């Protein structure tokens, strides 16, 4: 629905422009991204740089609104679930690839089979592990098969980019991609820049900006310098401190949530009173202001993203109550007890700042807190390895699928890689929710899981971080929750 409105407004804008000017000069913008794509093959890597380019060249069966709502993309409507493991998609009519080839059921089948082909060893299998295959029903209808009941299949299909089977066989997908999206590949001077041009026959109407140049600038400081010097129109990952320095910026709630996972079997943190005290001891509002200049929101009782399916609207965060925290620590007879806080540095926005600030708050409760900032591989071992669980470990969790399954299996499920509890009952609920295909029943399960984890203080949720983009004066753009850089949603005012 929203998508159609967007497409219509884009069409109207195009109409208006051609009517008013007649000779409106070509609109060209330059975007600075952090890393160069390793390849432009849309189905092999799990690579942010590749996505930032290919999200404009390719499309998937499903799409999302800028706010994160799942809508139809190359599918004509939401998929129909035929049985527990079969989903039927009807395709949009009149869509063509940039090389003129039609988009149809054969393209979908070929795309699915190429990604899941073990020969290709695609890194994207992390998203598509449950998909067993695809079959053509007729030219414009496809069914997708899963290996077991999979309620999030529609969300998964939003990640799978559709390719032209003919071009995949003969053309050069890795360095000259051909998709159905609003932008066509123009040129790629490796190491230097990459150019896209508007696709005039795009089914949703020709986009407003005609030419896009990507430049690859790994250092955030250098990206900022380039923006200030007028070389770039959009830069990614702007630090909150610079919102008052740049000509223009836009912030949007992002996918990342920072959280501490508590070791519920450890000597000190096994006491629920201690865990509650840890949640009460943090002045989250002060941290939002001091660290993020307000560009973060406090996570409401869970690390599940508010935009994700399964988020529990009834939970709230703990208010800052240092007296109560101290009293609880005394009640638990834990004054002076050792607490080791494990974390890393430099991987996520202000990670170290958050860890150290929280450790300082915790030290005020009377616990004997030590902070252990580890080197990244060592940290990964602490987080996911088989060794003893840390008392408290920091992580900024992110979930591109926007569904509670991944977050709960990862951090709440007792067998999850980053989980530190042994709550078998909750693990059962999570397993049940994973295969429950009735939406309401599934939401009810997640509501219960999230509440249980919150009440038992298995984690200390901190903040939903915002993505901030720096922009030049002439840019008009509202960034998206899913952090995709969709150029057809941008415009330029001269």
């Amino acid at each position, binding site marked *: 629905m929203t998508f159609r409105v967007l497409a219509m407004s884009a069409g109207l804008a195009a109409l208006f422009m051609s009517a008013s000017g007649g000779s409106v000069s070509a609109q060209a913008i330059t975007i600075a991204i952090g890393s160069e794509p390793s390849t432009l093959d849309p189905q092999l890597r799990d690579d942010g740089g590749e996505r930032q380019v290919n999200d404009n060249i390719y499309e998937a069966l499903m799409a999302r609104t800028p706010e994160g709502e799942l809508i139809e993309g190359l599918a004509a409507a939401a998929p129909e679930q035929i049985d527990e493991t079969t989903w039927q998609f009807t395709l949009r009519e009149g869509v063509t690839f940039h090389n003129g080839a039609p988009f149809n059921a054969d393209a979908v089948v070929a795309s699915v089979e190429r990604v899941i082909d073990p020969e290709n060893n695609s890194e994207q299998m992390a998203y598509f592990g449950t998909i067993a295959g695809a079959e053509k029903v007729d030219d414009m209808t496809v069914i997708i098969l899963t290996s077991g009941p999979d309620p999030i299949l529609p969300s998964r299909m939003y990640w799978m980019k559709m390719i032209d089977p003919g071009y995949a066989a003969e053309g050069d997908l890795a360095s000259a991609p051909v998709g159905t999206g609003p932008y066509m590949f123009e040129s790629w001077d490796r190491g230097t820049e990459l150019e896209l041009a508007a696709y005039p026959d795009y089914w949703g109407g020709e986009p407003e900006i005609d030419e896009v140049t990507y430049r690859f600038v790994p250092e*955030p400081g250098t990206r900022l*310098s380039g923006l200030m010097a007028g070389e770039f129109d959009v830069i990614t990952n702007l630090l909150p*401190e610079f919102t008052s320095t740049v000509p223009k910026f836009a912030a949007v709630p992002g996918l990342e949530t920072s959280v501490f996972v508590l070791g519920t079997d450890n000597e000190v943190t096994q006491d629920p009173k201690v865990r509650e005290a840890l949640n009460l001891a943090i002045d989250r509002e002060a941290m939002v202001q001091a*660290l993020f200049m307000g560009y973060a929101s406090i996570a409401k009782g869970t690390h599940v993203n508010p935009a994700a399916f399964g988020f529990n609207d009834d939970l709230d965060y703990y208010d800052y109550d240092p007296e109560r925290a101290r009293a609880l620590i005394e009640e638990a007879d834990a004054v002076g007890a050792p607490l080791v806080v494990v974390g890393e*540095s430099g991987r996520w926005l202000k990670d170290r*700042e958050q860890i150290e600030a929280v450790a*300082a708050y915790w030290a005020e409760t009377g616990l004997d807190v030590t902070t252990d900032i580890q080197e990244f591989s060592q940290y990964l071992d602490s987080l996911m390895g088989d060794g003893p669980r840390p008392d408290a470990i920091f992580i900024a969790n992110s979930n591109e699928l926007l569904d509670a399954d991944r977050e709960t299996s990862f951090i709440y499920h007792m067998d999850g890689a980053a989980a530190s509890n042994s709550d078998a009952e909750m693990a059962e609920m999570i397993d049940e929710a994973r295969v429950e295909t009735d939406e309401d029943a599934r939401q009810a399960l997640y509501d219960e899981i999230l509440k249980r984890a919150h009440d038992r203080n298995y984690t200390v949720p901190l903040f939903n971080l915002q993505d901030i983009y720096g922009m030049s004066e002439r840019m008009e753009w509202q960034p998206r929750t899913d952090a995709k850089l969709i150029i057809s949603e941008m415009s330029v005012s001269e």
Partner: protein
Amino acid sequence: MTQARPHRPLRALLAELWQDKPAALGLAVILAIVAMAILAPLVAPYDPADQSILSRLTPPVWNDRGSWEHILGTDNLGRDVFSRLIWGARTTLTIGGLTCLIAAGIGTVVGLWAGFMGGRTDSVLMRLVDIQVSFPGILLILLVVGVLGPGMWTLIIVLSVTNWMVYARLVRSVVSSTRQTPYVEAAEVIGCRPSRVIFVHILPNLVSPLLTLLILEFTNIVLAEAAVSFLGFGVQPPDTSWGLDVASGRDYLFIAWWLVTFPGLAIVATVLSINLFANWLRVTTDPEEREKRHARTVAARRRRRGTA
């Protein structure tokens, strides 16, 4: 070269240094930095890792928003820049000193051995030196760090291993020239053990050129350490290093110029002072250069008198 330098009292040496104002200043700065590094826990007003989220990015004291609490301001974590400079001196001097000692140690042994044995051993060892010289320094560090992971000790070892050749070459050339002098030949003829010959006759001649080289190489190590730490492959947080601080201040270049400026100036001051002093030392310990300097001073004095 062969006869021992006449004993010069320290006072006379200092007086001579005083003539060369830049070199004297250099020595003063070096001594100050060394003192800072040794006394870091006493001198530094704060623990370099102590953070205060509320007072982050405070500018230096002379700025309107600055305060005497943090003379050179604070960084993005609210850590005191001045304290970090002081502790950074410690890291820099430790890495520089250890690396130079290890490299000079290896180089001296190899050089002595090659120079003394001569013949086949000499040419094999010197070929080895050639291979080492063709090894791309910082890139080799990157290769090792890629395999072993970054860290201070990785850095010290790799820097030592890539820097000993200069010493080996110097020592070898001194040894082979010393060996040809009549009194060493005589010592060998009367049957002195080679180790005795080395210790009594050759080592004393090595001290002064080795010392000069050591000091000059030290600046190279300081710069290399800073560069590698800047790239993120050297000293790792929570340890401090000037190069690392420049790297982490880089993101804040626009709103906190002091984060990049001060550690950078610390590196410049250290290297510049050492160079100034080493230059004087080189001239002073080399009789030929001393003569030239004397001639230049006299000429300049004469010229000045002439123009006046």
